[in-house]
């Protein structure tokens, strides 16, 4: 079964307190999710879903919603 994107956020930021239902959940939602946090999360998503993001996509994908939408365009339901 495909892992939900929220599970990956929890794995990458194990100590963070956040509302996984928040539609704007993304960079800046909690202190740990900074630009480095985004980078690490996207690398984890690449490993989990066997996809590859381009340099410009890495710069643009800053929220759970945006990542999910992009994954959907690649045929991955996360």
């Amino acid at each position, binding site marked *: 079964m495909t892992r939900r994107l929220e599970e990956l956020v929890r794995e990458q930021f194990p100590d963070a307190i956040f509302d996984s239902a928040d539609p704007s959940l993304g960079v800046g939602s909690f202190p740990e999710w900074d630009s*480095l*946090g985004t*980078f690490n999360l996207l*690398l984890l998503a690449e490993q989990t879903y066997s996809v590859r993001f381009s340099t410009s996509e890495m710069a643009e994908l800053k929220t759970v919603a945006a990542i999910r939408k992009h994954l959907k365009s690649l045929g991955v339901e996360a």
Partner: protein
Amino acid sequence: MPRNQAWKVLAANHEVSFAALNDWSDLLLRADSRLAQVDALVWVIALEDVVDEGSSENFHVTLELLVNTLRVALTRTAGTKFIVAWSYPSNSSPILYAQRESLFWDDFAREFETALRKLQKIHRELYLLPLNRAFGGAGWKTCLDARNFYAGNCRYSFRGLQIISESSGSILNRIEETAAKVLVLDCDNTLWGGVIGEDGLTGIVLGQDGTGRAFQDFQRAVKRLATSGILLALASKNTEPDVWQVFEKHSGMILKRDDIMAASISWDDKTVSLRKLAQELSLGLESFVFWDDNPLERELVRSTYPRVIVPELPHDVSEWSAFVAELPFFHRFTTTSEDRRKLEQYVARGKFQSELRAAVDHNSFLRSLHLRPRAVALDPTLLGRAEQLCAKTNQFNLRIQRYSAGELKNMAENSHSILFLTHLHDRFGDHGNVGFVIARISNIGKTAFLDTFLMSCRVLGRRLESWMLGHCVKVLRRRGCEQLIAEFIPSERNMPARDFLDSHGFAPMNGMARQALRQQFPQIKISESTLHSMQLSEAKIPNLDICDEKT
């Protein structure tokens, strides 16, 4: 790349924290740096980030800067381990290398490594991890990622980071734990294809072609491990003569019967066989690697003895020779002559034990060995061996005190301590320095305390311990001591030393003695075990007539 999931492998056994990117000079050079508080530092350097390609001036300045920075940090910190991991750009165009001797990065990386290797000779806590080589197995290009550099200042791919994490973890694990000592092999479908009991000598697959050649190559790889000091053992569900017939008569066998140090060939469970082998070799199960083609046997061993290393084998035997050679459990940082001699020592020990079993009179047998022990003063070149004996000797060890080389050096310089190693030679060969004794002499009285009394398990059964005690008593008498106090602190594994004090003329002391002893030896941690004492003028030590060399 701090907090990336690729560091999980390293973080599984270590608490990992990250310095800021490019903060290395501050971290390594500042006197109040937190470097001294960490057990190990992994410094990952992409050389193209620190030196401009093509600039010869920059080349030497940068090289010196990197190496000198490291030298300062190594000199300043005591005990912190340093792992330096570096990578450099490589170009795979055949044209570039066709006529030129070398390229800029090859030259720089070579000089960098040479300088680090020189530094390593002075600083033993420095470990090197050349990443271009470490990445080789996975494919160098799969370990780099230009996108990660532009998106996150990281030269490496997720796989590359994983390899850095795994490799650093392997180095740190080997610093903390000794390498495996024994490879236990199944026989049918492991050393040869087929089942000897069913297929017979001519029916098993072992030879020049196809799968038979793969089994031979696996045996060759195993034999190379044996040459480096790994002991080989068999655990096979078979009829014993069938197995030895293959070893002795099959022309395709690379391994010979003499290569096998111990064997359990029976219809017993493999777990029973492993226990027997551990007893026969006098080694703990954590020293064992178990190799069996049958996944059920592997799982049974894994679940029964979690301490035994059971690698998950590639399905195809053609991959086994490379796989066994790459298993990090067997790798040591250096292979000493002592390691290479291990096989010889175990062969000698096996012969000793079989002759001992056959002997009618124990004492006559021991006299026939021509035991020639001698005491060896603990000079600085022997501190390492004494430390190793303290760290590794578990069976014949009265108090199991794990002294470091530094602590032993301090004791050796103290006039109130007597320290000596015991070297042994006999008919079975030169056993090297196999015993170690520390006796502390009280500042105020004429009493000595037997702080450490240990002997390597490979010479057990020769009553060398009696000679060691006899020598210790002689030296103490010469120093004017009148009484020797000793204690046995029981552990899970030192039962072979349990009866030593009672059988060597020591008498139990009453409880009041402990308090007095603590006052006389405030620097020694005296346990709650029963204390024993011996009046040196009345010492009657048995077995001293067994050795050719008297005390």
